[in-house]
């Protein structure tokens, strides 16, 4: 091979790399491991993790993943393919993205879905930038204080460096303060408004009239929704939203300590050409067969460079396949059942805890689905509850404040798990 290259050694091929830059020593890294050694290494690492029975949510939920999903995702024709630039040999990828787009549009009640983004936090930041890009000379976006703080922080980071004024709409009694929103819109300089559904405290906000107010101010309405709840809650499209975004982790994706998940984004037809990311469309080939291609690519970075709608070039490929195959297996009735079960268990847990007088809903008159913010009674803190239950194999929830615990239920907890949770809380020593 070297001879064909006209080189005496591989070093000749690097003659243009200045000698003083070339590595003098081998990497300070371990020697190669064989497969059994590597399995052992990972097993030892993983032994230092303690999986807990999960009652935490905050945007990431423990749902059931059908075995058939894992089996489909492991097809290496899907897994080891690149972005489908060559449609002739990528119909599999293009087809499942088209199915994914169709399902997300159905769930959100909007016209157009892209092929997916990284996660729910970055998808929301992209929606924020889309609002500004769609507005004329306006760079102010409003985000509700009831949005998941991780989402708000990521939006804040993108806003800071992108030059967007991101202001927080205060909350009142656990929901977005509509009077404040009205006042802030009155300034006439708002390009977009980002609201959650359900919100960070698990509350299903009543968005009646919001879209009209936002649109009257010539701004766009973005709803950040937990994907699984779209199966039962009024859709963003029905609320009059222009853009729906969020994380699709709740559609049966393993929690995997934070990723990979998938950020979905859907919008109205009017905003289609402002959307970031890949989009797949149907067309026909020379034989008249129905086929699928990447389309509307004039928005994208590889064509438009610094004028592109975003720097996004990948989508979450295989995770979009997860959504398509998961929703196919679960179906609309299964998605409803998952919501019913989570709702039933969360309400049962909350009422049992309330009876024990140590934890009770912070906003008892607000509707919630499968997640609820609890007030921690005197002599206890959210931290002590989390630490103590963790020692008993339970993740009690998320500490929102020293006396606020956010708890979620899904189809994965049994009645016995719930009873055990309540027993453990009721047995905690109270510090005066």
């Amino acid at each position, binding site marked *: 091979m070297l001879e064909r290259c006209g080189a005496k050694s591989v070093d000749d091929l690097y*003659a243009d*790399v*200045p000698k003083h830059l070339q590595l003098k020593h081998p990497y300070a890294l*371990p020697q190669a*491991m064989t*497969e059994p050694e590597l399995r052992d290494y990972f097993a030892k690492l993983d032994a*230092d993790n*303690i999986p807990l029975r999960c009652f*935490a949510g905050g945007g990431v939920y423990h749902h059931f993943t059908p075995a*058939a999903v894992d089996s*489909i995702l492991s*097809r*290496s*024709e899907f*897994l*080891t*393919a690149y*972005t489908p630039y*060559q*449609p*002739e040999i990528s119909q*599999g990828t293009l087809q499942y993205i088209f*199915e994914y787009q169709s399902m997300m*549009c159905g769930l959100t009640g909007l*016209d157009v879905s892209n092929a997916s983004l*990284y996660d729910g*936090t*970055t998808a929301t930041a992209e929606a924020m*930038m889309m609002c500004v890009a769609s507005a004329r000379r306006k760079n102010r976006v409003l985000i509700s204080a009831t949005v998941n703080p*991780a989402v708000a*922080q*990521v939006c804040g*980071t993108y806003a800071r*460096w992108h030059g967007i004024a991101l202001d927080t709409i205060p909350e009142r009694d656990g929901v977005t303060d509509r009077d404040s929103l009205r006042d802030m819109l009155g300034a006439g300089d708002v390009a977009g408004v980002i609201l959650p559904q359900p919100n960070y405290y698990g509350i299903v906000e009543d968005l009646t009239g919001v879209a009209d107010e936002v649109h009257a101010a010539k701004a766009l309405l973005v709803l950040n929704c937990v994907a699984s709840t779209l*199966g039962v809650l009024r859709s963003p499209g029905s609320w009059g939203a222009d853009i729906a975004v969020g*994380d699709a982790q709740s559609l049966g994706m*393993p*929690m*995997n*300590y934070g*990723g990979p998940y998938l950020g979905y984004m859907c919008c109205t037809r009017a905003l289609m050409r402002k959307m970031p990311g890949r989009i797949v*469309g149907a*067309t026909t080939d020379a034989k008249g067969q*129905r086929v*699928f291609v990447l*389309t509307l690519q004039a928005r994208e970075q*590889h064509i438009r460079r*610094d004028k*592109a709608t975003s*720097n996004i070039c990948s*989508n979450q490929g295989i995770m979009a396949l997860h959504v398509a195959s998961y929703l*196919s*297996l679960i179906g609309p009735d299964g998605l409803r*059942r998952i919501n*019913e*079960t989570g709702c039933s268990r969360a*309400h049962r847990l909350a009422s049992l805890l309330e009876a024990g007088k140590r934890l009770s809903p912070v906003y008892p008159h607000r*509707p919630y*689905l499968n997640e609820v913010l609890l007030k921690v009674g005197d002599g206890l803190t959210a931290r002590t509850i989390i630490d103590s239950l*963790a020692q008993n194999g339970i993740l009690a929830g998320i500490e929102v404040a020293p006396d606020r615990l956010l708890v979620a239920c899904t189809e994965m907890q049994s009645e016995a798990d719930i009873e055990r949770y309540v027993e453990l809380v009721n047995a905690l020593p109270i510090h005066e």
Partner: protein
Amino acid sequence: MNRTLYNKLIFEYSREGRVGAALPAAKDGARVLSDAIPGHLMRDSDPGLPRVDEPTVVRHYTNMSTNNFGVDSGFYPLGSCTMKYNPKINEALASSPSVAALHPAQPVCTVQGALRLYRTLEKALAEIGGMAEFTLNPYAGAQGELTGLMVIRAYHAERGDAARTRVIVPDSAHGTNPASAAVAGLEVVEVRSRADGRVDVDDLRAKLDDTIAAVMLTNPNTAGMFESEIPAIAEAVHAAGALLYYDGANLNPMLGVARPGDMGFDVMHINLHKTFSTPHGGGGPGAGPVGVRAGLEKYLPNPRVTESADGTLSVTTDSDDALGRISLWLGNYTVLRRALAYILTMGAEGLSEVGPLATLAANYVMASLSDVYELPIPGPCKHEFVFDGLKDKSSGVTTLNVAKRLLDYGFHAPTIYFPLLFHESLMIEPTETESRDTLDAFISVMRKIASEAASEPEMLKQAPHHTPMAHPDETEAAMHPRLTYSELKD
């Protein structure tokens, strides 16, 4: 690959009453839900999801996969994408039931193994990149670029150097470079490439002033050429008060040879889905860790994994020095697991062979074809090289025709019409994981196509002939976008 098109959609199998998975259910669920949520907050329309049984779903996606080409299907010489083989042990170790059940909000004392893995990979990448520290949070290469540029902006901001709002990018750069700069609020200034594909250093020097925040380079560049003047470039960039950014898209040929940190780069990202063998997944998920030289660590994004003196690991989420937060948690954890598995499988010595073998493979293919394909920049190249179409262009056969004909012969196409330096760019990156047999088979097909261009140009212009579909009407797709199943029914 199956050459018969399977183009049914899952919706077309939907039948009332069918279901593909049994679910745990609470007996009173329906009642509790309807009591809990007022009617006007509930869904008022059918979401249009299919009702299908499990065997139908599995067969549907299995059939669909047979119309797809992955690295496991065959040679994938897609320039700039580093489509190396994805070892199966990585998949086996990517997750497990216990890993899948780890919630990001678990107390840190219950996730010490996960944090140890993060820290171990971070240190390994720092050693390979010649950097002080890494964040593994960015989800993809493009987000890594964006994060790196935010690090640079945070650095200038803290120094009160607010006028630095522009970034210099070569005209040959990947489209994500200028696009990431724009998202980071920076204006793009292009620097010319010379005829040999390398940065015009005089042009670069002329454009460096106190408005420049950073210079973004890949090295080797997109033409596969090493920027030999990198020490002088780094010196000029630093003298002008700017920082030098390394786009790790082309890191593969540098493994075992040279480190970006030693070349003078201040900030870099690595595509784990390229150099570190994690699968591309038809578009993702990938990972784009970002490394910085000493002095820039504090700007890395929240959350950060930190280690105490006794070796206990914790997570900091609220550092004020940090550029902010760019991800839900600590990145694509299962992608990080695969990359660490790869590094440990290869070991220090194995990793050092990656670069030289990738470079050897590219030069071998280049030398074997440069009598029939136009080589605008003479070698030696690094991991990839660019042809400017066929040497004999009299037949009118284009790079697109050559690429499509390769599909007929069971190879993925190279990257085409990129970089923008040449009209008929055909960019080939074989990677180190291909055997000489595979390279020879590819070479012989490329030569055959060159002779077909002379003997049967019209046949070639109609390629591909043996793929499940051919010649999609892309104009129709863009003019009348049909993007969902419901639009197909109308």
